[in-house]
């Protein structure tokens, strides 16, 4: 049979377990009987348990097949993934819940990520597959989640904590509105391969790609010139042309942004804000990064009101106070100087120390 064009994704209706088909749109409320387990109750009185299991996201097909075996046994052959890449086993038959949990435990699966916990980190390709990373993705995630595991399989945080990791400023990992964003950053200007430029780069597009106007054409050379003083190492020129190599092993690393959120609950969605401009790429376990994140989280735990997201807490106490409490050094690098800088300036004479 020939391939069909534009047939679209498989129909989700075929992917729903019977308990969902029967109670579709009728869910009334949920409870979280224990970390990692959601119990949804329908208007009809029916219940469904979802068991959330960590995934490294970058998985082998054998990992997926293992999941299938479990789903066949306990979930009538159905499961789902979450928008944070966790696995959710959907248990229509309550009797199967405890056996499932036992099996998961036996096999070393990590159950958690519900309620006031840290769930999986949304992340990206890093050194595994992308061409512009300033850090790895999966490795940093692994290191950070190992360190914070106690907050994944419990629900003792002030509120949910959503983390994102992006290995470069393209920010595929949605770090810009995360409670904690881990962002791979370059710190040196691109090195130009003039030969490559001459071979295939569309110079006007390349020039236009630079947000700060650091690149200008060099007609004599049939290439371009970068004004290093204007460059802020975003790498967008490299996205446009492979001749603008941006990685720099000695100087690439990680920046930490905090306090973003996307839900509308209580407070409006907000951007994450930079609090640490650079941490080194200390592979394989990025100890500076894991420590910095843990310190921030522990400060939040110690100081936030119950129910207060990280950013809500910082906004309540004030960013200046966050810096004095955390002891993190403040520098002019943390002060915005890009397009929307003005709204960050303190246009008022009231502040803390």
């Amino acid at each position: 049979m020939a391939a069909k064009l534009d047939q679209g994704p498989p129909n989700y209706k075929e992917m729903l377990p019977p308990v969902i088909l029967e109670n579709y749109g009728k869910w009334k409320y949920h409870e979280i009987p224990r970390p990692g387990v959601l119990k949804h109750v329908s208007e009809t009185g029916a219940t469904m348990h979802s068991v959330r299991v960590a995934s490294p996201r970058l998985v082998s097909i054998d990992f997926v097949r293992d999941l299938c075996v479990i789903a066949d046994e306990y979930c009538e052959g159905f499961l789902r993934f979450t928008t944070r890449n966790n696995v959710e086993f959907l248990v229509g038959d309550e009797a199967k819940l405890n056996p499932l949990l036992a099996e998961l435990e036996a096999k070393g699966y990590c159950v958690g990520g519900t309620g006031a916990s840290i769930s999986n980190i949304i992340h990206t390709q890093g050194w595994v597959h992308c061409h512009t990373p300033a850090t790895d993705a999966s490795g940093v995630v692994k290191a950070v989640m190992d360190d914070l595991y106690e907050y994944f399989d419990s629900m003792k945080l002030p509120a949910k904590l959503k983390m994102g990791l992006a290995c470069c400023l393209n920010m595929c990992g949605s770090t810009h509105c995360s409670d904690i964003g881990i962002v791979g950053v370059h710190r040196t200007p691109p090195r130009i391969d003039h030969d490559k430029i001459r071979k295939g780069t569309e110079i006007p597009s390349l020039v236009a790609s630079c947000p700060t106007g650091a690149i200008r054409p060099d007609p004599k050379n049939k290439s371009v010139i970068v004004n290093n003083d204007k460059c802020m190492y975003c790498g967008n020129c490299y996205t446009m042309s492979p001749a603008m190599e941006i990685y720099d092993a000695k100087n690439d690393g990680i920046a930490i942004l905090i306090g973003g959120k996307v839900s509308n609950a209580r407070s409006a969605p907000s951007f994450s804000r930079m609090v640490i401009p650079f941490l080194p790429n200390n592979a394989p376990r990025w100890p500076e990064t894991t420590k910095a994140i843990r310190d921030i989280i522990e400060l939040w735990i110690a100081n936030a009101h119950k129910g207060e997201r990280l950013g809500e807490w910082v906004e309540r106490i004030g960013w200046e106070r966050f810096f004095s409490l955390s002891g993190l050094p403040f520098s002019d690098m943390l002060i915005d100087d890009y397009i929307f800088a003005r709204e960050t300036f303190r246009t008022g004479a009231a502040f803390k120390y």
Partner: protein
Amino acid sequence: MTEKKTPLLDELEKGKWPSFVTEIKRAAVKSPASAELLQVLERSYAERRGHWKHGGIVGVRGYGGGVIGRYVDEPETYPNIAEFHTVRINQPSGFFYNTKTLRTICDLWEKHGSGLTNMHGSTGDVILLGCKTESIQPIFDDYSEAGFDLGGSGSCLRTTNCCVGPGRCEHACYDTLEACYNITNEFMDELHRPMWPYKSKIKFSGCANDCTGAIARADISVIGTWRDSLRIDQNAIKEYAAEEFPIQSAVVAKCPTHCLTYNKETQELSVVAEDCTRCNHCINLMPKAIQAGKEKGATLLVGGKSTIVQSAFMSSVVVPFMKMEVEDDFEEFKDTVRRIWEWWDENGKTRERIGETIFRLGMGKFLRETEIPPVPQQVFRPRANPYVFWNQEELDQSGTAMDGSEVKNYNK
């Protein structure tokens, strides 16, 4: 190959969290490409840099995207991953699967590729990670026959995604799963054949909790809401009270608009409906007692994206409330979004996301030209500057076109 040492990566097999290194090793058992990936990754860990080159153009007949080309920088050393492209397979709504489908994905991928996958990519696709150029068409053919289709890449509509919605959530104000499926099918051409200034994403969240992160991660963010008043079940409130749930401190005190009042004596909770902004907080905390209103639909927000080039944008309100009904085939949504894309297609510069185009040309112009009514819900607050553009045709023009030297003589 597999016998080569990976001491740095091995460190990442320790610890509680599941290890991607273990997963690559599992794939490496069957796939020489995955085995080489392990080697090149170990080298990246040592050198602290990536080893992948810019993707060339690779693809599938009849499609303009869906595949990301990827080449290792030392093909001589790593011949099995000299080409190591990814194929984006459009996931089913809500990431629901039956095991048969999942196994099909695995089997086909075992046949053609590295055996490594992301379940899922950040946009939503099933990412088949690593295959040769020559395999791309066969991969597509096989998956297509098995009922799958490609996701988006390039300057097109990207793979849409949605939250679990009515499938498992009491908060869903519209059918996110059906919306995602129906609308994806509607826009097959836009998804598969890049035609726009840049990419455009849609994410469907069933309520203001926005479990897909639509407002930050999608150009078109569809967030469930209601138009009338939320509903309170006073009996259920009493049950919460009986269980000593902290109604006052956790719910009432944190309502951002202070529109809830709890009477401790009568154990009744009341709301000043016109003050409620539908933030969903109280419903989140007391789902047994509080629920959305009856008149349900969605808010349409536009412009979200990450940092490159003009800074990260969040989507902002364009249509405060629209019906999202399966019955009428999501007509209003489709019409509106078509007008929006058309406008962007005409006005956007290359590699300019729609949020940036609106910002550059002005929200007013955008609304006028897409015929979307201006309403105060679109802004947090009105303009602070008095730089208003006036439609000159609506003014008394009896003097304005005159030559400046004659100004004295008009306006008399």
